[in-house]
């Protein structure tokens, strides 16, 4: 008898992936709750690492008719000292059954592992990119027209004359259409010729004329139209500007808060765009573009001029990130100090240069831990931005002083809302 060996190892894996997705979809609300809960206990750095979650089994159970109670008889192995007629005390109730996936009591939580992608998706699922300043660019894709050869049908405006004439010529040559010159020549010859020869020539001319009539100069089958295809042109790239005040008044704690916010924003953007660039601009009383490490840890000191950072961002946008090709996001973190004299310039830069080209501009005012920011008088920058917002500038702004507030604030900023609502309250 023949035996077959089949190597299945190279078969595409993830055969159960679809079942898994179905399961996650069904348990979505529950898993999402679990993800939120899990992420609260985590450091933001690991928040998106995936990992184990536990969900209650409610709604995920697979019920069967089961029996319980009544008299039970069982045969067991390993008798050591019992003899017939012995009475054994009952063990305390609640000896657990095995933990099958959901077949047992429904109070049991069901634990399983989510991959990083699944975790991130669920984590950010009810968030959405704000669609503020440039509605049409917020689409991840835009459409463009591309030439795509020729077609036999189309609108008259798109007739390609050169191609049509070329085809007509080829056809005429192939079918040997008599040229007008040839006919004229024969006619001239006939006019001069003697009788038998003359009628012969005239007959020839008549035949050629008839043939020329049968073979038109341009036939409908020659006509060609230019063909266009709409090609989706993805605006699949985004740039994220991180603006931060690094003047002496910003403590390590405040920088840490800002960093966490930037990280979330980065992960979030990364989900929507294939390519995300980050530009770090730090400023004191003058601004510079720096690398990440310098941005968070490099020492700097000086006064505070927010307008310098906005100006720097504006310059970078103009030189490197054409707003038509890039989705631009900006998040600014500051303790709120700014020179009073700078307010007018800052306001103008923001409303006239920055906001029109950005998708989203968030201002995060960071405070010291356990510092009751909300009881304190508003900072100068906050006051300024609030005024701008009240005048209609699409700004999102929040105050944060504790690590634990970062995620709620982030969620709040990007929460999915009704179309009409503004992302900022």
């Amino acid at each position, binding site marked *: 008898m023949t035996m077959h060996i089949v190597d299945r190892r190279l078969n595409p894996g993830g055969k159960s992936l679809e079942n898994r997705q179905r399961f996650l979809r069904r348990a979505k609300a529950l898993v999402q709750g679990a993800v939120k809960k899990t992420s609260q206990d985590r450091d933001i750095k690991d928040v998106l690492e995936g990992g184990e979650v536990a969900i209650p089994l409610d709604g995920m159970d697979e019920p069967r008719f089961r029996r319980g109670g009544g008299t039970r008889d069982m045969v067991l192995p*390993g008798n050591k000292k019992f003899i017939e007629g012995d009475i054994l005390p009952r063990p305390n109730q609640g000896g657990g059954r095995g933990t099958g996936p959901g077949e047992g009591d429904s109070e049991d939580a069901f634990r399983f*592992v989510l991959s990083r992608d699944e975790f991130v998706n669920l984590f950010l699922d009810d968030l959405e990119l704000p669609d503020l300043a440039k509605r049409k660019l917020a689409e991840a894709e835009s459409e463009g027209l591309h030439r795509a050869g020729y077609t036999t049908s189309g609108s008259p405006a798109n007739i390609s004359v050169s191609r049509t004439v070329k085809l007509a010529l080829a056809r005429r040559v192939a079918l040997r259409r008599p040229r007008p010159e040839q006919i004229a020549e024969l006619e001239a010859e006939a006019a001069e010729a003697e009788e038998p020869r003359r009628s012969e020539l005239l007959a020839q001319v008549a035949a050629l004329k008839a043939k020329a009539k049968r073979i038109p100069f341009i036939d409908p089958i020659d006509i060609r139209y230019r063909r266009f295809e709409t090609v989706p042109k993805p605006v699949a790239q985004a740039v994220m500007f991180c603006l931060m005040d690094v003047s002496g008044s910003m403590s390590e704690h405040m920088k840490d808060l800002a960093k966490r916010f930037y990280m979330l924003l980065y992960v979030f953007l990364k989900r929507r765009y294939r390519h995300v660039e980050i530009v770090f601009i730090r400023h004191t009383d003058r601004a510079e573009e720096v690398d990440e490490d310098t941005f968070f840890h490099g020492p700097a000191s000086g006064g505070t001029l927010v307008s310098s950072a906005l100006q720097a961002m504006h310059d970078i946008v103009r030189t490197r990130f054409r707003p038509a090709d890039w989705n631009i996001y900006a998040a600014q973190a500051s303790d709120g100090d700014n020179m009073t004299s700078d307010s007018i310039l800052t306001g103008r830069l923001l409303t006239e240069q920055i906001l029109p080209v950005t998708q989203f501009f968030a201002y995060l005012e960071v405070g010291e831990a356990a510092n009751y920011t909300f009881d304190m008088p508003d900072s100068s920058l906050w006051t300024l931005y609030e005024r701008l917002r009240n005048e209609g500038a699409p700004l999102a702004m929040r105050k944060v002083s504790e690590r634990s507030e970062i995620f709620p604030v982030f969620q709040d900023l990007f929460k999915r809302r009704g179309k009409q609502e503004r992302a900022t309250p």
Partner: protein
Amino acid sequence: MTMIGERLFDGADWDFRTLQRVHDACEEIAKSELGLDVYPNQIEVITAEQMLDAYSSVGMPLFYKHWSFGKHFAFQEASYRKGYMGLAYEIVINSSPCISYLMEENTATMQTLVIAHAAFGHNHFFKNNYLFKQWTDADGILDYLEFAKGYISHCEDRYGRRAVEHTLDAAHALMSHGIDRYPGKKKLDLRTEEKRAGERRAHEESAFNDLWRTVPTGPAKTRAALTAERRRILLGLPQENILYFLEKTAPRLQPWQREVLRIVRHIAQYFYPQSQTKVMNEGTATYTHYRIMNRLHDQGRISDGNFLEFLQSHTNVVFQPDFDDPRFSGFNPYALGFAMMQDIERIVTEPEDEDREWFPDIAGRGDVMGVLREVWANYRDESFVGQFLSPRLMRRLRLFHLHDDPAETAGIRVDAIHDERGYRRVRRELSRQYDVGFIDPNIEVIDVDLEGDRRLMLRHTVVKGSQLVETDARRVLQHLADLWSYDVVLTEVDTHDKVLKEYVVSPRILPAAA
């Protein structure tokens, strides 16, 4: 006689040629020495992930999509990663050709063990046991699963995933009640039907005697009673195959929903023999691999080191913890099955007086494999234990029987132990533990109120005071009502027809029904 054969492999490594050699060597022993009769084999090498995949879709190589399989996969993956659970070394499918999955991580010794165990032990059992012969179609199952998968995904495209999911959820909830427990009457073809009717007429004519007309009959049945009876006959009631009943008679199901119920029902039926023969099936396979491995070692085709490796896995497989051991979770079918097979071997070859008294038919017959093959072909767990569990094995396993009556406040009574007075009772109780008639609650469709509100009536006959667990029962009945589209009533009655509890469930409005 011990032949010195060539080593099948050295060390732990193997390749496909090794597998082929191992298979051929096993086949030779299985056929010539054990007299096994198997389907052609197909061996598939898979990864751990694929093994998990197979686990979560009930071991089948292809199956339709459903969220519950995803749930099982997630659960199993989590416990596998944490190390709570090892993966089985193999999965084998009752089909022709018989497909055995081998994990790539296994060593050469393990692959040999698995081939002997699955490709010959299980394979022989599938092909020869009467339940499998009666209930499953090994040639057709893979094609059928292929069809089922295609059909269900086609339904999803056509009627929407939600609707299909609802129907499948409901069908799964009733899966254990979608089984015919007795082979139905074979449908007669028209010609035989006609012939039979003619014979019946001829018999009536020949037996006609006008005297019968004068015999007084009982009081005439009322019309209502007659129609009720007729209705029940027409609907084939009482009916314990609930899925079948719904498929045929539920008033508002779409044709595709009926087909989905049918698919689930067929699959449940396919697995029905497996659930009744766990001990025997594993016992057969374990006994087979034990014999084959020993023989291969005798022949010198497996080295001593590899044989020790085998013995270690074998010992783990047939380990039976005592009832008070924390590892105890019921009887290990491998352990009990293997112990009983070996015990039969002993009874056939070296019986004692006790065995002659208990097993006069087989004691001392000498032909071990002949007896075992008969046993493997003609029993299921319940009858196997009831027939072949010997007093000696009961003593060895130190079996005892506990009777737990909630009415008894003092505690649980030890009803019988492994002694002269207890053997038969212990054996009967253990056999009953494997009786599907006792394991599954006995629920039947008894009637439909066709003239009134079309409510469907079911009855659960409560045995030994063990009623349905309410939360689950309600959920299942909800599914049932959704399929039936009218109210469903389930009454629990004890053996004296006393009503213990009544459930009434109304259907939900489902998108599918709308």
